[in-house]
C-alpha cells in the first residue's frame, strides 16, 4: 500500500506546530522528531515505563500509545511546558531538585508531567492516592522514596500558592 504523509496541526505548550507525518507516527515520535521537543523520552514503547507521559487536554497519557494524528487540535503539554519561564522551575521540578527526586534523569520528564497533571486535577489527593499514581511510571535509580518526598513537597507548595491567592 502507498504510504503517504498527512498534514497535521499540533498545539504543544501553547504553540502551534504545522508538521507532516505518516499516520503510524506515534505522538511521542512526532513531538521528538517533528516538533524538536526531545524532553519527552521514549523507554519501552509499549506503555509500561511511563517515560513518554505527556498531558493531553490536562490528562496524563502515554505518548507512545497514541498516534500523532489523533492529537490534532488537542492541547498537548510536555515537560518543556511546565516551567513558567527560563529562570523559574515549576513547583514539581523545584521539589525534585530539592529532594533529590532524580538520579540519571531518564524517567524524570514522565514523572514531572504525571505529577504536575495529577496535582492540578486533584490538588488534595491523599498520600495513598499519590503513591498509587506514582506507581504508573518506572524509575530504576531512586528507589522512589525521594520521588514520593518530592511529590508531597510539591503538593504542599502548590496548596500554599492556592491559599495565597484566596
Amino acid at each position, binding site marked *: 500500500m502507498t504510504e503517504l504523509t498527512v498534514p497535521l496541526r499540533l498545539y504543544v505548550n501553547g504553540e502551534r506546530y504545522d508538521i507532516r507525518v505518516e*499516520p503510524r507516527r506515534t505522538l511521542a515520535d512526532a513531538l521528538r522528531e517533528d516538533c524538536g521537543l526531545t524532553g519527552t523520552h521514549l523507554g519501552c514503547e509499549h506503555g509500561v515505563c511511563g517515560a513518554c507521559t505527556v498531558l493531553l487536554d490536562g490528562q496524563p*497519557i502515554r505518548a507512545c*500509545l497514541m*498516534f500523532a494524528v*489523533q492529537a490534532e487540535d488537542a492541547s498537548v503539554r510536555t515537560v518543556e511546558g511546565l516551567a513558567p519561564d527560563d529562570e523559574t522551575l515549576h513547583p514539581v521540578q523545584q521539589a525534585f531538585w530539592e529532594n533529590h527526586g532524580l538520579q540519571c534523569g531518564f524517567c524524570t520528564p514522565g514523572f514531572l508531567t504525571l505529577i504536575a497533571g495529577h496535582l492540578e486535577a486533584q490538588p488534595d489527593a491523599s498520600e495513598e492516592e499519590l503513591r498509587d499514581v506514582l506507581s504508573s511510571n518506572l524509575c530504576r535509580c531512586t528507589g522512589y522514596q525521594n520521588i514520593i518526598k518530592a511529590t508531597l513537597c510539591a503538593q504542599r507548595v502548590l496548596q500554599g500558592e492556592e491559599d495565597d491567592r484566596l
Partner: protein
Amino acid sequence: MKPSPFEYVCPDTLAGALDALAQDPDYSKVLAGGQSLVPMMNFRLARPERIVDINKIPDLDGFEVQGDRLRIGARTRHLSVQYTDQPGPLGNLLREAASHVGHLPIRTRGTFGGSIAHCDAASEWCLVSTLLDAEMTAQSTARGTRVIPAADFFQAIFTTALEPDEILTSVSLPILDDNWVAGIAEFARRAGDFGIVTATAAVQVVDDTITEARVCIGGVSEVPFRSAAAESALRGATWSPDAVTAAAEAAAEEVDPPSDAHGDAAYRRDLVRALLPRALGQAQKQAHEQVRKTEAG
C-alpha cells in the same frame, strides 16, 4: 518498535466507521483507547492495514440507566468508570474494579468496551461482565444490531463472538438492588500489572441468608470462569465466615488453572482460596456500611 504502515480513517459517524470496516474487515482494526492495540502494533504483533479510529464518533461513551439495567457506552474510558456516580452495589463494584485497571495514564485513554472486545484473560471488565451476565451490543452494516450475552461472547483468549466487521457499541449490566453486595480482589506482583488471579463475587442477602450468589474467577482459564461450585456453596447458606471459607474451598477445587512463569496451578488455586474471601469481605464491609447509613439516616 514502530508500527508498520497503515491507512488511517477517522469517521465522525458510526455508519461511516462501519462502512470503512466493511470494506476489508480482515485487514482492518478498530482503534478506541489503543492501550492494547498500539503496543501490539509497536511490537508488530498486529499489522492492520487500515485503522478505523472511533474517537470522533458521538454517543459512544457514557452511562445510561435503562429500566433495571445500566448501559455503558463501549468507548467510556476506564477513568470515567472509576469516577462513576452510579449508586448501590453495582457502582461500588465498577469503581473498585476500575481501580485495578492498569495505571492512571492508561485509564485516561483505555476504554471499557475496548477491554471487553480485546478479551485478555486478565481483564477486569471481562470478569465483571461474566459475573453479572452482561449483554454486549454489536453493530455492523451486514448484520445490523446484535445483542450477545456474556456467556457466548467470550470464547477464548483474545477471541470473542464479534465478527471482524462488527463494532462493540455498548454493554449493559443489571443494576443490583440494595439486597446485593459485590466485591473484587486481585493479586498482581506490582500495582497496575495484569492480575495473576482475580476473584469477584456478588451475593444477595436477605435476613442474613444468601438467596443468590455469583462468583467469577479470572486468571485460571482462557476466559473468566464462573464457579458453579462456589455459587451453590453460598446459595442458601447463612452469610458467615464459614460459608465464605466453604465457597473459597469449592472454587479452588473446581478451577483448573494453567501453569506459567507467573505461577503454577497449585499457586493459582491458593490465590483463589485467598482472594475469594477478600472479595466477599469487601462485599460484607459494604453491607455493614449500608446498614450503618440506614440506621443513621
